[in-house]
């Protein structure tokens, strides 16, 4: 139980680090002088010391939505597959509940965007609604096919099963669903081919547009939510698609898991540097690829058993 709680706290703590790491890596790759990888914590600290400004046009939704954006994601943290062998984990919660909780958080974020009566907010919400509507089916199909390979619909149990018995006989469908999930990881977290988290240009903003009107504590909450969301997806990827190193000793396993997270972050940074942001109406093509791979994975599993 202690390891379980420690794992969750650790993941929440390193969440800002991962995002700063991606940013720093990108800057190095672009021959810029990188920011410190602790910039995320500094920003957080800065925001906490600022005063909170609430828009005059907004309603009670703005008051409560930032908390409701964060809390479903915190709950999801409790349902992730275990990081190390022997740790307590919630075995039974399935992918629908997890995607549902992530959607709940997005739902309130979108309402938040519409609440301040600014054109930016509406723009962000509208685009986010468009993207997340297309992410949903790919997500469900991908997780369905992974759970078939793992032999359990509960995400925690699936992670353990995969770690204990790597599905070599289903390598083809495993790879297909891995590709699909990685595209979803990029899309759900607003990384570059889908959304550019660094820009504040209205042509390209999605996530930033929704929260443009927030500052202080509320912004800190939302930033925390988005970094936790990245950690959730990265650690799902790490434990479902790179299921190695689970059986090491406690400390080694933790370290190994964190290294896996940083590798994922590095790959994300590499992809971000090498791709241009897609136009909004090209995004369905990318998500279409994710959907097709998810279907392929299911079909290979059913028909070929491979």
């Amino acid at each position, binding site marked *: 139980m202690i390891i379980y709680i420690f794992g969750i706290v650790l993941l929440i703590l390193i969440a800002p680090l991962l995002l700063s790491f991606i940013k720093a890596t990108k800057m190095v790759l672009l021959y810029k002088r990188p920011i410190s990888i602790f910039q995320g914590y500094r920003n957080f600290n800065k925001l906490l010391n600022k005063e909170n400004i609430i828009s005059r046009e907004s309603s009670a939704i703005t008051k409560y939505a930032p908390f409701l954006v964060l809390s*479903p994601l915190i709950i999801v943290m409790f349902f992730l597959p275990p990081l190390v062998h022997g740790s307590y984990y919630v075995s*039974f919660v399935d992918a629908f509940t997890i995607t549902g909780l992530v*959607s709940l958080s997005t739902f309130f974020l979108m309402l938040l965007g*519409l609440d*301040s*009566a600014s054109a930016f907010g509406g723009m962000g919400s509208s685009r986010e609604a468009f993207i997340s509507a297309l992410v949903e089916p790919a997500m469900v*199909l991908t997780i369905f096919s992974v759970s078939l390979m793992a032999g359990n619909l509960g995400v925690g149990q699936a992670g353990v099963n995969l770690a204990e018995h790597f599905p070599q006989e289903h390598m083809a469908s495993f790879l297909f669903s891995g590709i699909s999930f990685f595209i979803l990881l990029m899309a759900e977290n607003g990384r570059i081919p889908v959304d550019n988290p660094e820009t504040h240009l209205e042509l390209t903003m999605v996530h930033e547009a929704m929260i443009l009107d927030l500052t202080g504590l509320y912004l800190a909450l939302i930033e925390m939510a988005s970094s936790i969301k990245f950690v959730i997806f990265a650690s799902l990827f790490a434990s479902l698609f790179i299921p190695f190193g689970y059986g090491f000793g406690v400390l080694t396993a933790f370290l190994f898991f964190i290294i896996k997270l940083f590798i994922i972050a590095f790959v994300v940074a590499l992809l971000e540097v090498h791709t241009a942001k897609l136009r909004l*109406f090209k995004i369905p093509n990318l998500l279409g690829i994710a959907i097709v791979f998810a279907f392929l994975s299911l*079909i290979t599993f059913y028909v070929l058993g491979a």
Partner: protein
Amino acid sequence: MFQFDLLSLVFVALILLGAVANIFYSSGYLPHIERKVHYQVHYFAFIFSMLGVVVSANALVFLFFWELMSLTSWQLILTEVKEKSTIKAAQFYFIMTHFGFVFLLLFFLIVTDGNLEIGFADMKLIASTFAYPTLLFFFLILGFLSKAGAVPLHVWLPYAHPAAPSPVSALMSGVMLKVAIYGMFRFLFDVLYPWPLEWGIVILTLGALSSLIGVLYALSEHDIKALLANHSIENIGIILIGFAMGMIFDSLGLYTLSTFAFIAALFHTFNHMSFKSLLFMGAGSILHQTDTKDMQKYGGLIKAMPITGVTFLIAAISISALPPSNGFLSEWMIFQSMLSSSYIDTVSLKLAIPFAIFALAMTGGLAIACFVKAYGITFLGLHRSTNAKHAHEVNLLMKIGMVLMALVVVSLMLFTPLYIKYFDNVFVSLSHISVYDKIFPEGVWHMHSVGINGGIVSPVILLFSLVGITLLMLFAYKVFNVKTRVHNTWACGYKTSKKTQYSSTGFAGPIRRFFNWLYKADEHLTKETIAGHTSKFNSSHYEVHVKPLFEDVFYNNIAKAVNYISYWVYRLAHFEQTRYSAMIFNILLVVLFSYRIFSHEFSWATSVLEFFVMMISIKVLIIGDKR
């Protein structure tokens, strides 16, 4: 004449749950209605007739109450006949509902052998000896699904529901559609059992199509009640998916999964009743205050109407199937039953079901987008019209109605095990096996899927942990006493006004553009440009109208074909007498010539020759010269 078995009683419970809150709401709405007596008489007769349908024990009583239900609801649509569109909607509803009635009548005439007073058990005997059970099945689904509003018989819903007064739309959408689902349950279980596999697949296809098409058209709507009506099509689709999975599993012999899927369908029926009634009540309250159904004229209503706003939010979360709401739980059950399809042996069926999963997941995503739009544009931001600015909370009775309905929604979420126990008993009484102990094997906290290695969800724990963590954070926020300042929204140095916000057209813009192959939208853009500049203009106006594809392709083309045929029949009926004799001569020729074919003495040469003889005689004798 009447029967009160568990299936009837569960639907009686559904109607009562839907009606009690509605009666409060309707009494509050009454001052808004001009023809009060007409309205009240039909309103109560409507509720009464729905109760009658679900407890009737023979075909005659069933059809009587069914027709009474159709007629009273038709009159209720006509309560406020100010606009021409209302009359048109009522006509459309009248025709569609009787289109379904014809098929029901055919069904009953066949299965009762003409004696409409026999019970359902006797009907089953007659149906089992009937040579074409699939014909009976098609009569049945045409009859009931035209009422329930499944694709392609859904076209009347987006007209009829907005035209009716809001309490009535809540009843029609929330309860009346479910009476049609009752019909499906009753006659498929009691009369047409056992089902071939194909029937389940037909219903699955219809359900998947309905859910996607319903939500896509809902997204493009501006009229809030039409939006909700389109969502009814979607939810009926979801119910049908669950129902179809039950039928498929049953015909494959997987009885546990079958009961599970049926429970999911019945649970979603209840859930849809609760949140759709609540949403229509909320829409009615807004309509009452702002005097328009156009969402583009709302905005900022949560400040003026907090109770409507909060109850609408609860229903919106529930209909978007977000955890831990009741809508999520029933969709979760339907998903789980579809995921159990990996235990089916037939590979082609196994491969087909992921497409239904895809449709349902896509529907879920689009429903979230749609309700963010509906809630955000209606309740958040700044008011977009003067009426919205001066709106205030509705009267006490209407508030009571909405709060009661919200309680029904919450109770379906909190007391899921109790409801499922009840639903389980229903299916046991319909000679299916009980699965309650498999859904809740370790007490009521965790809900299990009955498939092997299925998922588990714990709704109440999820709800409390969500509320708990949120409250904890709010508490911390209060304790730290963060300095807060109120200031205008930043709008690039301009002033925020009602025109700087996104409109509902704009919000659905990306999705509408992506699905334009389906919508075939009519766009109108007018600009008043300044001195010939293309990018500088005084004012501009953008309008987009989405054409209902099914109505265009399906119904209008059928209408055209009928018109064409009737023209030729007309021509035929107005021949001169000489031509009639010519026709008779020609028909005689056809009979003579075709005799050769029937007696298997076919040869190409004579056939060609005969064909030319026929053509010449038709040309000479019937068509004649053009004058």
